């Protein structure tokens, strides 16, 4: 039974590992922190998996667990400085030479962690009701917030490419 549960979990993780890489890539830059967060997401998901009864899709459930783990993850102090340095290098790169999706990545990583969560769920095709449910906020406000984040991303993109 336990072996069956293990295999089932491993299979589901392998099918959905992109979600974990996405959350880690969006929230952590340091190599060691990435490794730690990766392990932590797998562990937290495993601990809760026994109670996963399929009320939602596994991918949605894993996305929520990964986001919750990332948003409560304690980055190491010294590594946070490295992160700042890395980000400042990224922002000073010539945007004209970079492709749209690479610039989008940089722009999304520059917005605050909560907005980052809302916009990535939105761009991954989650409905506003689902986003509100995952985040624990009201749907109406999610609509307004996401529109604002999208406008900001587009405006920032224009500034970077035209400025």
């Amino acid at each position, binding site marked *: 039974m336990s072996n069956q549960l*293990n295999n089932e*979990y*491993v299979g589901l*993780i392998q099918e959905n*590992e*992109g*979600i974990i*890489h*996405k959350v880690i*890539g969006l929230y952590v830059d340091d190599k060691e922190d990435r490794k*730690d967060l990766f*392990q*932590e997401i*797998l*562990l*937290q*998901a*495993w*601990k*809760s998996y026994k*109670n*996963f009864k399929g009320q939602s899709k596994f991918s949605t*459930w894993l996305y*929520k*667990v990964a*986001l*919750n*783990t990332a*948003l*409560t*993850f*304690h*980055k190491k*102090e010294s590594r946070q400085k490295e992160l700042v340095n890395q980000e400042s290098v990224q922002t000073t790169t010539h945007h004209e030479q970079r492709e*749209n*999706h*690479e*610039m*989008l*990545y940089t722009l999304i990583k520059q917005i*605050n*962690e*909560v*907005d980052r*969560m809302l916009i990535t769920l939105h*761009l*991954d095709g989650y409905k506003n009701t689902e986003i509100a*449910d*995952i*985040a*624990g*906020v*009201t749907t109406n*406000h*999610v609509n307004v917030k996401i529109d604002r984040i*999208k406008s900001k*991303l*587009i405006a920032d993109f224009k500034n970077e*490419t*035209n400025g």
Partner: protein
Amino acid sequence: MDNRELDLFKDWQKLASEKFSSNNIQKQEIMDAIHKDSNSTISTLKKSLKIKIMWVTAFITLFSTWMLFSLDRPELLLIVGAMNASYFIALLLLVSQYKKMDSGLDITSNTLATMKKNLNLISNALKIEHTWGLFTLPSALIVGILVSRHYNGYTIMETFSDPSYLLKIIIMMVIILPLAFITTNKMNKSAFGKYIDKLKENITRMELIQ
């Protein structure tokens, strides 16, 4: 001048397929991860609480043994007994907090609730650590003075009515209490300050969407 347009969904798809779509995680990697110890903040604080619980238990055992061998010295029994009782209360608090931390966090609830619960558990654990630091050092010093005076033949009343010892205790309190307060505060702040600030900031941002 660059007139490129950003197509959010299309560019996001491209980003996701390029950067996040690797599918090479091995079964062994997953199995290793789920058998390792958690490195979450709550787990770190839990480990630290566990060590304190072990220390307090050791002190209680030590004090109880001391009391057993001091049954003929009522004064000493009183001093050590009071210290033992306060350590016992501390033990109950630590154990109850440890249990709360064990079952407190549901990572599958919504993000706002998870962050709030996380903040709450961590703040409580740090408060206990703070109180612990504030309580143990001064009380150990006072008990140390009283016990050493007791073995020199002075009663508690005599020690407290001796202005020089009373002054010593007061000066110790005046210096050590704020020092212990500042030190424990600083230690907690340097270890968890930025993390807690970030957590609070994210909670506030999320609540503003409500």
